Each structure stands twice: as structure tokens, then as C-alpha cells.
């Protein structure tokens, strides 16, 4: 038999001024099942709370309604009161007679009547409340970081230094990401390798970091605190435990310097066994199976070449290596898969994105993208930092830089600003001018976006000190022409400030292509249940207040995979993500509100409507079998680790087998029906 205590608060004058609290208590006392109804000046105060506690104990109340302010204000307070008094904290409901009544209705009679109805609704609900226990889940104190660019490196080092183990997965043979290939970096023009290499080495040596390069995430199971992740380690054909990195193999490979090196964006060459760049971590080679003569010949049962293995003193080379699957258990996941440049050329993979046939990228050898230019002027690049154009190795005297290529171009299918190209283009003009003093750097831009500490000063320096010529206008077309026997690239542009067309003949053209998320990121996002936008940039929970969390509990994002970003922002975000992961992993166990969905498996028709509707992929269809393993029926099942309690499944279930604890159909209908008498 229900015995409900109803405690009406005056909130000083706040409620009592417009609601006749005595009349309320009187009316409520008459409701069936109400065991006590009283009012007090400040229910949330110490004496107010002890009044409630005393009544709970004295009368053996089975449920409590506090009629006062918004539950967002004090539901937690009164739950604690109940718990202290010895009843389950989920057996209390609040009626909001302040924000929804006394503060918004001045007619006292009307407000009093409404207060009585609101409390009546709460009484009907609490009568149907059940004792609930918060869900507790254990936490595996280990984090997974996916992607080892500067974002992944920073996040891994921070988590590891916080005393938590990290598994760092990188799909390339070396860590470092794009930053490892940059020349000097804005806004300070320090050498990229000089600042990144020490951290790459640290990642390779940190006792808390298990580095898995040339590996990708295959499968993700489980939920926050308890993920089981399967990682695929690609066949490297070199046992990096045995290998010392001596280099005898790659120096002897007959394919040495014959295969385009993707790390140099195909401007330089490597061998079939190679390290992508000298500072690679791990400093261990990889065999490229498509270009190795031995591995190719083995397909036909032959054994050609094999020179590298003969040279190797440590027997590290294994032509029979195979890909391996490794399962790791982690409590939190940080995604740091970075970006790639929009490919610019006429042919595009994504049908929604169009290329720039008018710029001849991919057709004209000296029309390069911005990352290629980074390699061309990088001291570690294929030309040793001497600016040379790809077609004939001549030093370019006139370079045209074009901004917003792809970015902000609706016709090509990308509407956003890539945010960093204004800055790196200014940098490019400076680095070029520092190396070719009599050269001309011309920039075509639409707007200069240089918001950041010392950023605008940086751009102004490019113009004022280094004499870069900035034209405000887009380029319409680039044509390869011969001028006095010299190959030139004629850029048909505009100077919108002057209001005329401008034509500039360049020896080389650099296109600042749009920043796009790394290939394959959407498949990864689906494995992790992380949202992404139409371009594939991963979605944070809230752009301002939860910038590194995602809506998948326990999964965090940082760096350019979330949106275009420069290094300072990337690193800041990586540390933030590491911090958030450490906060989560520092708890002995995770508790979650018990207000989640349940399925009545007897009723469920396994139609799958809920599975499709659930925004968190928390429901799946499973088979019920008897003890002998005979199939009985299919049913949907909620994973309590994933369910966030939104109730969408309940609304879509045609057989009414789904319900939401804490907001059950039973409770909600009772609330509505309580109005039947007064309506």
C-alpha cells in the first residue's frame, strides 16, 4: 500500500506569495495514497530536509513528492535526503510550482489551483516509481589513441605521463603525420622536424606507450570503460624486434630510388624496402609488397632477388610475414586521424566533389599542391631545401600561390574555409623569398584569415618585409605556355581591388587545396558510433562546451580530424582530449543514471524499428535459445553501457515492448490521466 509524503515549499515568499500553500497541503492530503501532506518555509534548508527525513522514517513513506522549484535546481538534493533517510533515491519526484507556477501566474487563485494539479501529477507518477540502482561499470585503465600525427603523439604522451597505459595505432610505417613533412612552421618559423622529432622519439620509448605502426583498427566492441578493440597489423616483412635499423638492406635494394615516395608526395623516390624518412619512428624499414621483386616473384613460385635478406645481419627480414590481429582492452579511445588535402585534379573519387580541370593540376608538372611545396622547400625534402621545380629542376623565379582552392567553392562542392591556408601561404612566400632573393611571390586570395596570436603580424611581414605581391581575386585558368623558349604557367587572375583582370606568368604554381578528413575516417567513425558532418569531419558533443568529447561515451577527438586546424590548436585540443580521458580513467568505476530503455523480450517482434531509431546504436537484435541451444525467437536487446535514455525506441516500437525506466508508459499515462478529473 502506497504511503506518499508530499512536502510543499514556500520558497520564502517566492511561492507562498502567489500560491496558497495551506490550501494546497489540505487538498493534496485528500488524494488517495497520500500519507502526509505538509508545507514549510525552505524545504531545501537543513531543517527542511530533516523534516522530510524524519517523516520518511516515522511514517515509513514509500514515496516522496517535493513541491518546490525546478528539478534542475534541487532534484539531486532531495534524492540525497531520501537516501540518507533510508529509502531509494529514485522514489522521489518534484512538482515545479515555482518556475512553472508562482513566478509566472499572478492570480493567486489560479496559481493555487494549478499547483494542486501539478502536485497531483507528481503523486501519480511517484506511485509508480521503482527503486533503482545507478549503473556501475568497471573501467579498464588503458587508452587507445588512433592516428599518430602531432595530435595523436601529444595525446598519447599526456595520457602516458598521467600514469595510464596507451596503445597508439598508426596506419603508416612511421609516426609523425603531416607535420613530419612540413618545412618551417608559422607563426614562429621554427623547423618542424626540430620540434617534432624529440616527441616522436619519446613516443617510441615511453614505457607506458605501446606503439603499433602500420596498423589499423579493425573492430570495436563494448562500451565506455570497457572497449574491446581488434587491431590489424599489416605485414611489414621486417621483424622490428630483431631489426637494428642499420640500413644495409635499403641501401642494397636494387629498387633503391626507383619508387615514388608517398611521404614526399611522390616528388622523391625510395626503394622497395624503405624507411619513409630518415627520422622515422620506429626507425625500422618496411617492404612494399607491390614493388619488391622477391614478394612479386613468390606469387609465381619463384624466389628472385632477396638481396636485403642476405645483407641483414640480424635475420630480421621475413618474406613470409602475414598480417596479424591483436585484441586490446581499453577504457577510453582518442581519435586523431588528421587530414588530407583535397586532390584538386579533374578526376575525383567522391561524386559530390568536383576537380579543377581549369588549373591543370595533375597535368602540368609544375602546378603543385601546398604539401608538395612544403617538401620542395624543406631541408629534409627531396631537393634538400633548394627550391627546384619538378619538371626540369630549375630554380623558379616567379611563383604564383593560389588560395581557397576547393575551399569556399560551392561549385566544386566544398563550402567551408580551411582556416590554415592563408597562414601557410604567407609562410610559403616568406620561405621562398628567403631562398630566392630576386624571386617574385604572387598570391591570389579572396580574404586573409589570420586570427591568432601574432598571426596577422606574420602575414603583414610577408607583404611588408618580404615583398609578397597579394592580389585580391581568384584565378580563372592556368595555361602552360612557352615564353622565349621557357616553360611558363600563365595565370589568368583578377585584381578586384583595382577592378581589372591580371595575368601573371609563373615558373611554378602552388595551390592551397582544401583540408579534408583523412580517407577512411567515416568507416572508422561508424565502428566507433561517432557522428560526422557531410564532409566526414568528426562531430564533437558541443562546439563550445564539449569540444573534445563525442556523443559516444568514452570516445574523444582531437586535431584535424574534427575540423581544419593548425598545430597550436591541434596540440591544445590533444592535451584537452588526454585530460578528459584521464579524468574518466581515474575513476574506480563509472556510474550512470539508471534511466535507460528495457525491452519486454516476450512481446518484442524483432521488427528492428528501435534498432534503426536509436541514435547510439545501443540496441541490437539477438537470438534467444533454450538451454539445448535450440532457437526460440529473436528479440531486440539494449546494451546498458551504450543506452543514453533518450526514449526514442519507446516511441517507435510498434508492439510497445520497449519502455524507458523512470519515464515508463505506465508513469507518463498516469500523469496525463491525473488531469482527467480537472480537465
Amino acid at each position, binding site marked *: 500500500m502506497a504511503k506518499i509524503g508530499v512536502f510543499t515549499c514556500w520558497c520564502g515568499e517566492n511561492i507562498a506569495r502567489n500560491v496558497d500553500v495551506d490550501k494546497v497541503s489540505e487538498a493534496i492530503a485528500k488524494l488517495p495514497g497520500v500519507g502526509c501532506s505538509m508545507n514549510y518555509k525552505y524545504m531545501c534548508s537543513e531543517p527542511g530536509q530533516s523534516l522530510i527525513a524524519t517523516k520518511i522514517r516515522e511514517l515509513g513513506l514509500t514515496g516522496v513528492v517535493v513541491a518546490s522549484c*525546478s*528539478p*534542475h535546481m534541487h532534484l539531486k538534493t532531495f534524492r540525497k535526503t531520501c537516501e540518507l533517510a533510508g529509502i531509494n533515491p529514485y522514489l522521489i519526484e518534484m512538482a*515545479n510550482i*515555482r*518556475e*512553472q*507556477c508562482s*513566478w*509566472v*501566474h*499572478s*492570480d493567486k*487563485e*489560479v*496559481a493555487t*489551483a*494549478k499547483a494542486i*494539479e*501539478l502536485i497531483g*501529477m507528481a503523486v501519480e507518477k511517484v506511485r509508480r516509481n521503482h527503486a533503482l540502482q545507478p549503473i556501475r561499470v568497471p573501467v579498464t585503465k588503458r587508452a587507445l589513441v588512433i592516428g599518430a600525427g602531432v595530435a595523436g603523439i601529444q595525446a598519447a604522451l599526456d595520457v602516458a605521463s598521467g600514469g595510464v597505459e596507451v596503445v597508439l595505432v598508426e596506419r603508416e610505417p612511421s609516426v609523425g603525420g603531416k607535420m613530419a613533412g612540413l618545412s618551417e612552421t608559422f607563426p614562429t618559423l621554427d623547423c618542424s622536424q626540430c620540434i617534432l622529432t624529440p616527441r616522436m622519439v619519446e613516443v617510441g620509448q615511453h614505457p607506458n606507450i605501446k606503439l603499433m605502426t602500420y596498423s589499423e583498427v579493425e573492430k570495436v566492441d563494448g562500451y565506455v570503460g570497457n572497449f574491446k578493440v581488434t587491431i590489424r597489423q599489416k605485414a611489414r616483412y621486417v621483424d622490428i624486434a630483431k631489426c637494428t635499423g642499420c640500413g644495409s638492406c635499403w641501401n642494397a635494394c636494387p629498387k633503391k630510388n626507383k619508387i615514388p615516395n608517398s611521404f614526399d608526395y611522390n616528388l622523391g623516390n625510395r626503394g622497395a624496402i624503405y624507411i619513409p624518412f630518415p627520422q622515422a619512428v620506429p626507425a625500422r624499414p618496411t617492404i612494399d609488397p607491390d614493388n619488391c621483386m622477391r614478394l612479386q616473384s613468390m606469387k609465381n613460385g619463384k624466389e628472385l632477388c632477396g638481396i636485403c635478406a642476405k645483407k641483414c645481419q640480424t635475420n630480421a627480414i621475413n618474406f613470409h610475414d602475414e598480417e596479424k590481429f591483436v585484441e586490446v582492452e581499453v577504457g577510453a579511445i582518442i581519435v586523431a586521424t588528421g587530414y588530407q588535402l583535397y586532390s584538386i585534379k579533374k578526376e575525383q573519387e567522391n561524386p559530390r566533389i568536383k576537380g579543377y580541370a581549369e588549373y591543370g593540376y595533375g597535368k602540368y608538372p609544375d602546378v603543385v599542391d601546398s604539401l608538395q611545396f612544403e617538401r620542395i622547400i624543406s631541408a629534409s625534402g627531396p631537393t634538400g631545401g633548394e627550391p627546384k621545380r619538378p619538371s626540369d629542376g630549375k630554380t623558379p623565379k616567379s611563383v604564383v600561390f593560389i588560395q581557397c582552392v576547393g575551399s569556399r567553392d560551392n561549385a566544386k562542392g566544398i563550402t567551408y574555409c580551411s582556416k590554415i591556408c592563408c597562414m601557410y601561404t604567407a609562410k610559403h612566400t616568406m620561405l621562398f623569398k628567403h631562398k630566392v632573393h630576386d624571386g617574385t611571390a604572387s598570391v591570389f586570395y579572396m580574404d586573409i584569415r589570420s586570427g591568432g596570436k601574432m598571426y596577422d603580424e606574420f602575414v603583414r611581414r610577408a607583404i611588408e618585409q618580404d615583398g609578397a605581391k597579394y592580389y585580391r581575386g581568384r584565378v580563372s585558368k592556368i595555361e602552360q605556355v612557352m615564353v622565349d623558349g621557357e616553360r611558363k604557367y600563365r595565370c589568368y587572375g583578377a585584381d578586384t581591388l583595382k577592378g581589372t583582370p591580371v595575368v601573371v606568368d609563373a615558373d611554378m604554381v602552388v595551390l592551397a587545396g582544401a583540408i579534408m578528413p583523412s580517407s577512411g575516417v567515416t568507416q572508422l567513425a561508424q565502428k566507433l558510433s561517432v*557522428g560526422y558532418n557531410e564532409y566526414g569531419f568528426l562531430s564533437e558533443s558541443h562546439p563550445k562546451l564539449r569540444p573534445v568529447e563525442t*556523443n559516444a561515451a568514452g570516445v574523444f577527438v582531437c586535431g584535424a580530424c574534427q575540423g581544419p586546424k593548425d598545430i597550436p590548436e591541434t596540440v591544445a585540443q590533444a592535451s584537452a582530449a588526454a585530460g578528459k580521458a584521464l579524468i574518466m580513467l581515474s575513476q574506480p568505476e563509472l556510474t550512470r543514471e539508471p*534511466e535507460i530503455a528495457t525491452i519486454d523480450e516476450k512481446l518484442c517482434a524483432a521488427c528492428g524499428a528501435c534498432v534503426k*531509431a536509436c*541514435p*547510439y546504436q545501443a540496441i541490437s537484435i539477438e537470438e534467444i535459445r533454450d538451454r539445448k541451444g535450440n532457437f526460440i525467437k529473436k528479440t531486440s536487446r539494449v546494451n546498458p553501457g551504450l543506452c*543514453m*535514455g*533518450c*526514449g*526514442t525506441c*519507446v*516511441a*517507435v516500437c510498434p508492439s510497445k515492448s520497449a519502455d*524507458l525506466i523512470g*519515464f515508463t508508459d505506465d508513469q*507518463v*499515462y498516469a*500523469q*496525463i*490521466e491525473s*488531469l*482527467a478529473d*480537472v*480537465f
Partner: protein
Amino acid sequence: MNAETKSTDAFEPKIVAFVCNWCTYLGADLAGTNRLEYPANIRILRLPCTGRVDFNLIVKAFEIGADAVLVSGCHPGDCHYTAGNFHARRRWDLFRELLDTVGIDLNRVYFSWISAAEGAKFQKLVTEIVDKTREMGPYEDYKKLVAES
């Protein structure tokens, strides 16, 4: 409404509102904090998300005598649950058809987005709904329909 305090012939519309916990409920709280007065004809039911609202809940509200129903949640894209209100929105077209089929006057069902910061919008909306419903008069048709069947 309370029959003793109001003269019986003056029609007081009865409105049931299903609102989400994270946006519209907080918007209503803000209207309160700012003392934005609005008609007392509305009864709010707090649900986690508008995604939780199904067709039957709306029908139920009319069955017990509501003259209008409001469903209000977060703005699209701001949903606390990523996509819950998106589902609600997609269902909305279906709702309308179904409601129409069971004979509910679609002019009596309101769907809106009110954020936690939009106390004034909440005040305005409730006032408008009450005014409009007052104009339309009591929803006798549906009650008759229920009584007949």
C-alpha cells in the same frame, strides 16, 4: 480548470505540453526566473527528449479532455541525444497523417523548438496557443468522437 474559482461559462483552454528535459523545460524555467507571465492553462510533462513522444501520448491527452497539445524540444542539431529530436521531427509528418486519420484537428497540435535560452519564446508561444485555442473554442468534436466509439 478549477470550476469554483472561474465562472463556468468562461471557456478556459486546457493545454498539455510534452517537453524535453534539456532545452524546452529549461526554457520554461528561464521564463519563470525572469518572471515572464503567461496564461496558467498549460500543464507541462517533462520527458528526456521529444524522441520519447509517440502518437498515442498525444491522443491520450485529447482523450482526457485537452483542447490543444504542444510538443517542444531542442533546436535541430542541438539535441542532447544527437538525433533524438531528429527522429521526432521525421515522425512528425507521419504523426500528422495518423492524427488526421483518427479525426484529430491538426490545428490543435503544436510542434516547436525552444532552447534553454528562449524563455521569452516560451512565454510568447504559450500565450499564442492559449489565445488561438480560446478562439477555436473547446475541443468538443473529439470528445464526442470518443464518446460515440
